[in-house]
């Protein structure tokens, strides 16, 4: 029930992201071209949700924003889950100093306030690494890398805990006795058995990434305009509050729905894992 509701929410937003191009062609409006005569326009037939501070169609910008925000969420979840699972498996399998070093680093990262550090990292000039400045693609890459660097911790702890229990079970011993290499034991035998908790962690990572990206973009450190993301559409919300309050509502609703959808998926997966249906 939770799982399906969550998937439906994410699916609807994903569909919006896919349909952004078609909607643009059909409505015949350009969500990137400013039209200063139509600033803060009210909802109308031509602009179903009105226009923003530069007179661009809000609905189309929301749909294009969905592309950016969801892409960041999925990419971070993939990266963080992959890195976290690998680290967790390694820590559980190798034990000893590798385990303690990885877990101390994880503890350290968890104990720190994430957002101030994200702000510092996001302010780093990526141009110094030879990346093009001011392009949407390099903004997205930068934010994904930063969020993965913080996001792997949760998955790593869950994967480690799950792998530790699995590694003591008889089937692992049986696989080893029958001559399977350690790599094969980990990848073919242990990994499928810890897929449950890892799936939950991945869904939570999507939620966390969408929230973090929107917050950084809101603060002006994430995706830079003119490329729309749900977060940067709110970045001059302080001004909107007086001139067009509804403009400040819609991007937030999209973030809320996306994060709630991912959280519901995580909840549903967890309950399913516990046999609660």
């Amino acid at each position, binding site marked *: 029930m939770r799982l399906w509701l969550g998937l439906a929410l994410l699916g609807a937003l994903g569909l919006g992201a896919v349909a952004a191009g078609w909607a643009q062609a059909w409505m015949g409006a350009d969500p990137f071209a400013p039209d200063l005569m139509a600033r803060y326009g009210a909802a109308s037939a031509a602009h179903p949700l009105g226009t923003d501070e530069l007179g661009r169609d809000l609905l189309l910008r929301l749909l294009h924003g969905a592309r950016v925000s969801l892409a960041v969420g999925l990419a971070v979840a993939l990266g963080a889950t992959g890195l976290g699972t690998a680290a967790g498996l390694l820590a559980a399998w190798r034990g000893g100093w590798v385990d303690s070093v990885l877990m101390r680093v994880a503890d*350290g990262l*968890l*104990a*720190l*306030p*994430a*957002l*101030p*550090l994200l*702000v*510092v*990292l996001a*302010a*780093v*000039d990526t*141009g*110094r690494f030879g990346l093009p400045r001011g392009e949407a693609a390099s903004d997205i890459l930068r934010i994904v890398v930063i969020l993965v660097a913080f996001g792997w911790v949760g998955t790593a702890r869950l994967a480690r805990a799950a792998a530790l229990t699995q590694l003591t079970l008889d089937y692992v011993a049986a696989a080893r006795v029958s001559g399977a290499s350690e790599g094969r034991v980990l990848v073919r035998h242990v990994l499928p058995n810890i897929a449950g908790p890892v799936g939950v962690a991945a869904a939570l990572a999507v*939620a966390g990434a969408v*929230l973090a990206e*929107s*917050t950084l973009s*809101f*603060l*002006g450190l994430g995706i830079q305009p003119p490329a729309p993301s749900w*977060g940067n559409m*709110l970045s001059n*919300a*302080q001004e909107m*509050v*007086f001139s067009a*309050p509804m403009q*400040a*509502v819609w*991007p*937030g609703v999209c*973030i*809320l*729905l996306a*994060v*709630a959808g991912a*959280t*519901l998926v995580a909840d549903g997966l967890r309950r399913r894992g516990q046999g609660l249906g």
Partner: protein
Amino acid sequence: MLRLVAGRLVQIGVVLAILSALVWLAMGLMPGDPLDLAMAADPRLTAEDAARLRALLGLDRPLAERYLAWAAAVLRGEFGFSRLYAVPATEVLWPALRSTLVLLGWALLLSAGIGIGLGVIGAVRRGAGWLADGVALLAQSIPGFWLGILLIILFAVELGWLPAGGMGEGGGLGEAARFLVLPVATLAFVNIAAYARHSLSAMREEMAQPYVRTARMKGLPPRQVVWGHAFPNAAIPVVTVAALDAGSLVSGALVTETIFARPGMGKLIYDSIMGNDYNLALLALLLAALVTMLATLAADCVQRLIDPRLAH
């Protein structure tokens, strides 16, 4: 307990040292140094002047050397100056820390109170579980900055009951409290989720235990059973949440203070990074990390006090 505290203090020191080096490196990679800004602001400043000033300020030295010099100064108790505010950094830091601690204190009290209340009611009353669940989902999913904007639209712009931002300095305690309502509400609400969820599941577990049935059977009033018997046991995992949540509270303070224009640690960190005030930014960041880790340590100590088994 003493060993826990001592060991953790050493750990905190190590984390702060590593963190300061990493942040120093990150700041070295940020666009522009203070003299770029000075040159942009003053057209009469020539390139030779800038180079001379760079040498004078030591900005031409390698990053690692500058870091070691900075660390040595900090260990001597010299915290340097803020470029943005043109006063010693500590003069900006302490008032900001005080303002943030007030905000965090109220938000923590409210979010823990409401979250635990929701969780307990959800576990005790049949059919009230969805309320705790629903509020937790909403609180977890809502972006803090957006909630702040919505509250400003509703209470400051439409209704005009409360101020949209600032501190209300010089207006006495009542005035300061009026400026505190919306930021505290914002920060408290987004932090309810963890408390509600964990107290809901912990209370559900405790209420199913035999000792609760015994307490009921011997005729104790329900209130006594819930708060006197079940809750103290359920409180242990909830305190763990408090320990893990210290970081997210401080993160939330950055957003809340920025939106409501409150001069606290969060806004200070944001403004100083945006304004290339690296010395202040680094100190503020380390102070925020220190506060977070001390709060976590305090929660861990409380946990040991409630549950002496943890000591073994």
